[in-house]
């Protein structure tokens, strides 16, 4: 039996994927180069800008936003001040700014791509049937795998990091947008239709406002997932807190690893609570 199985030649899946990748890299190289240089300079610019802001001012701004977003409660604001001061104290401020740039870029791109796909999915059973398994695939594939095409397309640096993060972080926004729109009560959709709304009017005036809190929950997940890609993306040269974690790992420096990891956790908590409280607001 074993012999028989061995006689089937191994399918050239890996080779085919590589061929496709080669084709893409050679034929679309000018596009990738453009994205790489453009993205790199845009992100460098933003990081430089963030670094230029005096840390104390930055901390106060974050605290103020937290205070207002949580409807004038002090908890998150105090946590932000203490947490960010700690990160500054540990000499990780510039790394934090790099991480913020990466997370913001990846999240915004994921939202810009994800929300329309989610809307499209909610409008068509057929589209849902095709997109859902793709999302499953994107989420179950280990994040590391996305680094390979990212490097092939964009070399190393922050742009491939964002690319890999977007792929990894996209699914929740798509899923929650789809879910949110499908959950709008049927009677309200009928009411909108019965008054002669066009498809766009229905979407903008009824479906999106009613799906908003579900979509925001998806965006929150997307932001956190892109944050979780920070460490992985540092393997291909994306700067930031992730790189500190990685270098501590490579040199077996438990202390440094802990500090960098803790800084990531602090940042994650602030950004999670902030996006959540934005959602609760009326």
């Amino acid at each position, binding site marked *: 039996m074993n012999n028989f199985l061995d006689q089937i030649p191994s399918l050239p899946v890996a080779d085919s994927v590589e061929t496709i990748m080669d084709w893409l890299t050679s034929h679309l190289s000018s596009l990738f180069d453009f994205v790489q240089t453009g993205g790199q300079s845009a992100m460098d610019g933003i990081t430089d800008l963030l670094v230029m802001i005096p840390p104390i001012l930055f901390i106060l701004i974050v605290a103020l936003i937290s205070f207002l977003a949580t409807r004038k409660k002090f908890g998150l604001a105090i946590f932000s001040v203490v947490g960010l001061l700690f990160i500054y104290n540990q000499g990780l401020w510039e790394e934090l700014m790099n991480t913020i740039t990466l997370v913001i870029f990846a999240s915004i791109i994921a939202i810009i791509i994800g929300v329309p796909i989610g809307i499209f999915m909610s409008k068509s059973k057929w589209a849902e049937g095709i997109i859902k398994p793709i999302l499953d695939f994107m989420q179950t594939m280990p994040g590391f795998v996305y680094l390979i095409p990212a490097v092939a397309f964009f070399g190393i640096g922050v742009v491939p990091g964002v690319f890999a993060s977007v792929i990894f972080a996209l699914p929740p926004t798509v899923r929650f947008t789809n879910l949110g729109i499908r959950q709008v009560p049927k009677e309200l959709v009928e009411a*909108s*239709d019965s008054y*002669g709304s*066009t498809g766009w009017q229905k979407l903008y005036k009824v479906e999106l406002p009613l799906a908003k809190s579900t979509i925001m929950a998806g965006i929150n997940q997307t932001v956190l997932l892109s944050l979780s890609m920070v460490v992985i993306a540092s393997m291909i040269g994306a700067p930031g807190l992730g790189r500190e974690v990685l270098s501590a790992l490579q040199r077996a420096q438990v202390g440094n690893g802990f500090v960098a990891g803790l800084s990531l956790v602090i940042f994650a908590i602030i950004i999670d609570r902030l996006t959540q409280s934005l959602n609760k607001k009326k």
Partner: protein
Amino acid sequence: MTKLKVDHVTKIFGKHIGSALKLVDQKKSKTEILKQTGATIGVYDASFTVNEGEIFVIMGLSGSGKSTLIRLLNHLIEPTSGGIYIDGENLSDMNKSQLRKIRREKMSMVFQNFGLFPHRTILANTEYGLEVRGISKEERRLKAEKALENAGLLPYKDQYPSQLSGGMQQRVGLARALANDPDILLMDEAFSALDPLIRKDMQDELLDLQQKVKKTIIFITHDLNEALRIGDRIAIMKDGKIIQVGTGEDILTNPANEYVRSFTEDVDRSKVITVEKAMIRPISVNVELDGPKVALQRMREEEVSVLLAVDKKREFKGYITANDALEASKRGEKSVLGFLKTDMPTVSSDTLIQDVLGTISDSPTPIAVVKGERLEGVLIRGVVIESLATSSVGGDGNE
């Protein structure tokens, strides 16, 4: 004049629609078709017409297809076969933008659970239909505020639907529909989610409103009492079929089949109307205070020839007639006691109408309705008969 015509409309849900439709043509029953093809018949070969300015009620129990039928009327659901004609135009022949135009301008819908948008204020909800039509902000605000004012809801315009009671929410639903000034109102179990007292108020309001605005109203209900109360004509549905169309009286006196009969019998037993419901406000004179001149003045004012007499505690004492009062006034009498008549029958306010029918037809005078000794109202023959005709109590047709 025919406003809306439903012509052999069938709606089939599920698979094998083609073969199910063939079975419909062969007049197979709904369950038979389900068994043979697996397709569910929502509406089975329905035909009727609705005249301009009438309230047409479609009545059926749950699963009878009435909600599907009303959604076919504005093509929220597309019919499998047959045509819906509004002012002679077939909706099936229209493209999307023509259909939108019909929905925007000719027909508005009111929903069972109100269908109000929770993220919009009452005013913004009322404006919705005008907004999607592209009417300017100022104009739609004016129209919406007018509609809310007519419904007595203007003070609530900046609140959100969840802040209002069910009855008020449905008034908003109705105001939203009327703000569009449609020809046709589609009301899908519009009052079913309301509690009985508010429901009755809303029915009255709808009838009052209809006096003023004269829309063509298609009203869905599962409640025959409601149908009889508000419907000019009633269609009874069962298993997707229209079994009978007629006035309330037609349906009570000549039920098309056993099914309809069982319904109407149910109404007769369940609907036990007391005289309290049929009585009208008494026009009275106080025997201890008023003289013949006051009595005559009041008769002129109220355009009646008989006044009920009460004392200070509003206890029923008798009645006086116009002739007697005139003569007493000529004689210069100061009190009505001299010509007070006491031969008017009285009934207690909780008596069933059926039980006083004999008294009413025998008595030459109206009948006083009392609670204890206190005068509550008066029964006049015409009003009682009218209340029987519209609320179908008595059920004489069946006996």
